[in-house]
């Protein structure tokens, strides 16, 4: 079946708009897809447009088949898989480009517009910035304008198409908002598809090897934001507990895969006032959750506490996630630890870091008790020349030995690791907690911003009678790191040497404002999940909101809004106002009792009325003249008045 491949320029009214819709839908993908895909889609679009403009032939079937095969192999080669948002949108874009080359009829463009919508959707799955919403609205407007152009047979009137599409979108907007608010959110996904943003995640890693990477990123990226119900805890209490590392192989600390522990929560005993707060966590693609040390309850479903009191969710945090939690800054954990566990937590590989082991043995022998020994070690870090720096020299083999005796420069990971190794060498159980410390208060939003640069590692030591006790050797070396946060610490230390000055106050203020807006956006728009929705429903006055009530409300509101739209349209299509002259004249016609003939002029009718002698001839002439004046005369308002007066006289 040979298909006709000729073009006749009939698509010139709609094709540019379809191309514009595709361009709008595809533009946000450009940074993510390989350059050749962008090239392919631009080339195909230009090629297709030139074909239409010059009335050329579409490429032959075998050319298109070859192109299709090449492109699909290209996608396969680039991504090595075809599931997920990244390869998915690359495939969509390629399909659109190839479809363009076989678009011959007006109706073929429907496929292109559907593809545009899917491209917009995958853009939203990728990025959810503040500007994504207006950009999406504009893209949808362009898509629906193109849609209208498909049916329009006239080259002119593009502006009218934009206006119509905009009008219909404006009608639909309240419906969309109502559905968005009331559509019940569920917390668990049906299936997990990796959302590939092609951007390295800058969260915490699952292991720690001090000395391997010689510098820590000073990324300003936000890790999470916190809104406290009451006062913000003091800086030194702001330890955000994440994952816990328990095993050391002489070089690298590792933890365990997240696992549920029944007694972990029971091991915690608390005192003092609880701190309740809400965290908006940026996606980490890991299972760990962060909470103020020590969390006792949390609101996120499918979330559990691991054996070392670390929080994790069953599925990775692929989306920005909001959860509430309650913590106690004064607590005791596992005051009784079985012998077996004590050995396990103080296990070290045979023969690694020998100098450290010797030092520990000497110090333990000198100290009277475990507790005294621990204090001695901390004092050593504090009094001997140890330096806090974000750019420490690399360490070779036996990194703890090299660090403690040679370089003595490092950041939290080095200190936490070295401290733990010394204590373990003396048989004291330790574990390392990775998380964040500190955070910056945004005075505009009233929330706390915790950035990636606030990442921190500290040690927990088990002491008889005390249980697991947090000891931060970094605080002993560089108390300002704990009291002020990394930013100031770094600027004070290395930064000042290099002539770093903090940005201007104005810029700083701007950054904070932007952050405050973003925080609201994140919390209420992007983070509008089951918890937020529940709260909003309660605020609206719905008791015990559940999905049934919400769906019912949704249906009710949507029906009401649709009726409103219908009424609006009815008003739009109402008949035009009849002019007063014809209303008055009709009254006169009724009074004559004579039916006007089709096409009869007012004068001819007047003649017939005069002949029939039902009304006074003067009146007939007067009314007819006034009516003609009102219709065709120069001063129509006066003539209408005259007509009204004439009829009043007759009555």
């Amino acid at each position, binding site marked *: 079946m040979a298909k006709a491949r000729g073009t006749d320029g009939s698509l010139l009214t709609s094709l540019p708009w379809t191309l514009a819709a595709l361009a709008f839908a595809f533009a946000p993908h450009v940074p993510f897809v390989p350059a050749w895909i962008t090239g392919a889609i631009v080339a195909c679009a230009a090629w297709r447009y030139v074909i239409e403009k010059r009335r050329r032939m579409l490429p032959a079937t075998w050319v298109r088949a070859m192109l299709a095969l090449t492109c699909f192999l290209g996608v396969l080669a680039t991504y090595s898989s075809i599931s997920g948002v990244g390869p998915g949108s690359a495939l969509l874009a390629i399909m659109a480009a190839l479809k363009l080359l076989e678009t011959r009829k007006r109706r073929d463009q429907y496929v292109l517009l559907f593809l545009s919508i899917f491209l917009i959707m995958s853009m939203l799955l990728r990025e959810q910035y503040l500007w994504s919403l207006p950009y999406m609205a504009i893209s949808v407007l362009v898509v629906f304008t193109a849609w209208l152009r498909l049916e329009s047979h006239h080259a002119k009137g593009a502006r009218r198409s934009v206006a119509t599409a905009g009008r219909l979108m404006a009608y*639909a907007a309240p419906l*969309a908002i109502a559905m968005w608010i009331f559509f019940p959110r569920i917390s668990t996904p049906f299936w997990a598809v990796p959302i590939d943003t092609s951007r390295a995640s800058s969260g915490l890693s699952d292991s720690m090897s001090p000395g391997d990477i010689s510098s820590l990123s000073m990324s300003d990226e936000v890790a999470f934001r916190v809104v406290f119900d009451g006062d913000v805890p003091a800086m030194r209490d702001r330890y955000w507990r994440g994952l816990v590392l328990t095993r050391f192989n002489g070089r690298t600390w590792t933890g365990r895969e997240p696992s549920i522990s029944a007694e972990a929560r029971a091991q915690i005993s608390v005192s003092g006032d609880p701190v309740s707060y809400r965290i908006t966590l940026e996606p980490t693609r890991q299972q760990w959750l962060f909470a103020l040390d020590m969390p006792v309850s949390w609101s996120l479903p499918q979330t559990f506490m691991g054996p070392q009191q670390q929080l994790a969710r069953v599925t990775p945090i692929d989306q920005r996630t909001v959860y509430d939690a309650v913590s106690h800054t004064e607590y005791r954990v596992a005051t009784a630890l079985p012998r077996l566990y004590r050995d396990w937590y103080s296990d070290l590989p045979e023969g690694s870091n020998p100098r450290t082991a010797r030092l520990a043995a000497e110090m333990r022998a000198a100290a009277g008790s475990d507790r005294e020994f621990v204090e001695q070690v901390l004092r050593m870090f504090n009094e001997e020349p140890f330096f806090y720096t974000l750019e420490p020299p690399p360490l070779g083999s036996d990194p703890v030995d090299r660090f403690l005796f040679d370089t003595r420069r490092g950041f939290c990971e080095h200190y936490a690791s070295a401290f733990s190794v010394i204590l373990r060498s003396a048989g004291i159980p330790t574990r390392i907690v990775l998380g964040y410390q500190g955070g910056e208060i945004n005075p505009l939003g009233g929330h706390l911003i915790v950035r990636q640069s606030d990442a921190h590692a500290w040690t927990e030591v088990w002491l008889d009678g005390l249980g697991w006790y947090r000891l931060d050797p970094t605080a002993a070396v560089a108390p300002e790191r704990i009291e002020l946060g990394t930013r100031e610490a770094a600027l004070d230390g290395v930064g000042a040497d290099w002539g770093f000055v903090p940005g201007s106050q104005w810029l700083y203020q701007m950054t904070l404002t932007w952050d405050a807006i973003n925080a609201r956006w994140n919390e209420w*728009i992007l983070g509008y999940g089951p918890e937020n929705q529940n709260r909003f429903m309660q605020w609206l006055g719905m008791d015990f909101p559940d999905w049934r009530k919400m769906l019912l409300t949704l249906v009710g509101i949507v029906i009401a809004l649709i009726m409103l739209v219908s009424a609006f349209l009815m008003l739009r299509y109402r008949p035009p106002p009849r002019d007063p002259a014809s209303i008055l004249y009709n009254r006169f016609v009724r009074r004559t009792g004579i039916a006007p003939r089709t096409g009869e002029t007012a004068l001819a009718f007047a003649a017939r009325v005069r002949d029939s002698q039902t009304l006074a001839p003067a009146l007939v002439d007067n009314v007819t003249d006034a009516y003609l004046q009102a219709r065709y005369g120069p001063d129509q308002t006066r003539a209408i008045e005259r007509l009204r007066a004439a009829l009043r006289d007759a009555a």
Partner: protein
Amino acid sequence: MSSIPWPFPDPRGIVAALRSGAGRRISRWARKRQGRDPVTTTLQPGRVYILPTGVGVVYGLMTFAMLLGSMNYNNNLSFVLTFLLIGIGFVAMHQCQRNLVGLEITFAGTEGVFAGQAMRFRVAVTNRSRSARYGIRLYCAYSKTEAEDLQPGESKVFVLPVPTEVRGRLRLDRFGTRTLFPFELFRAWAWLHMDLEGLVYPAPAREVPEPPPTMTAQGHRQHDARGEEDFAGLRRYHEGDSPRHVAWKAYARSGQLLSKQFAGADTSSQWFDFDDLPQADVEARLQVLTRWVVDADRTLMDYGLRLPGTEFPPSHGAAHRRRCLEALALFGADDS
């Protein structure tokens, strides 16, 4: 209809039969519900029907898939997009229906055609509202028109061609108007059952015997035959009379249009008589007569037509032609 019966049922035929059966039932229901429409009908909301189109179904499936995707990713911005599209779907449905409601539809007449030609029913559609209506189309079982836009107050005449096969009255029981505006997601339509009727004349026969000779040639002297030799008097002007025969002086005097009548030897008036034709078949005879009438009308000869029960004395002109053709079209019909 008149195909050779096939021993095995054709599945496509069964589907088509079921569909057309359902279609017939639905249209009977609509007909009963709406009653017969006056010649000028304004579409009321209750009689504008609406269903999604193929594009609309795809659109619905797409929004459903997007809803599932948004729920899966719990992505609030794609929820916004999904709900915006759903909202646009709802709005499009109402817009589509409102695009038809309130249109004024008037039968604007038709002209007689010969069997085999297409009868062109003219229907005027008027937009009596403050907003433009887009993509309005008329259709019937046999044809559909192009889609047209109607500005406020604008009226457009649509022509619905209907093929004809046999002479007689042709009724168009039902026609409709429909629209796909705005996004072709929905098709709104209204059925109209007006008295749309046209006359189909018999198809002129292809091969005809020579028409019967004129009266003169037969040796008769016709008392009312009109030639151009001797002035025989004046009569009221008939449509189709030659302007050369109009008594312009008399018109100037009285303001009445009169035609001059002549009597003369050279009259060429003919009688076309149904009973004189040798063919046995009534239809064949009518076709021959039709041919003669059409040909005679072209040559501007006077001709008379004699059918069993009716007689049209010799004359000529468009009105005479129409009267003759109407009689031929309706010959034997119950109501004539």
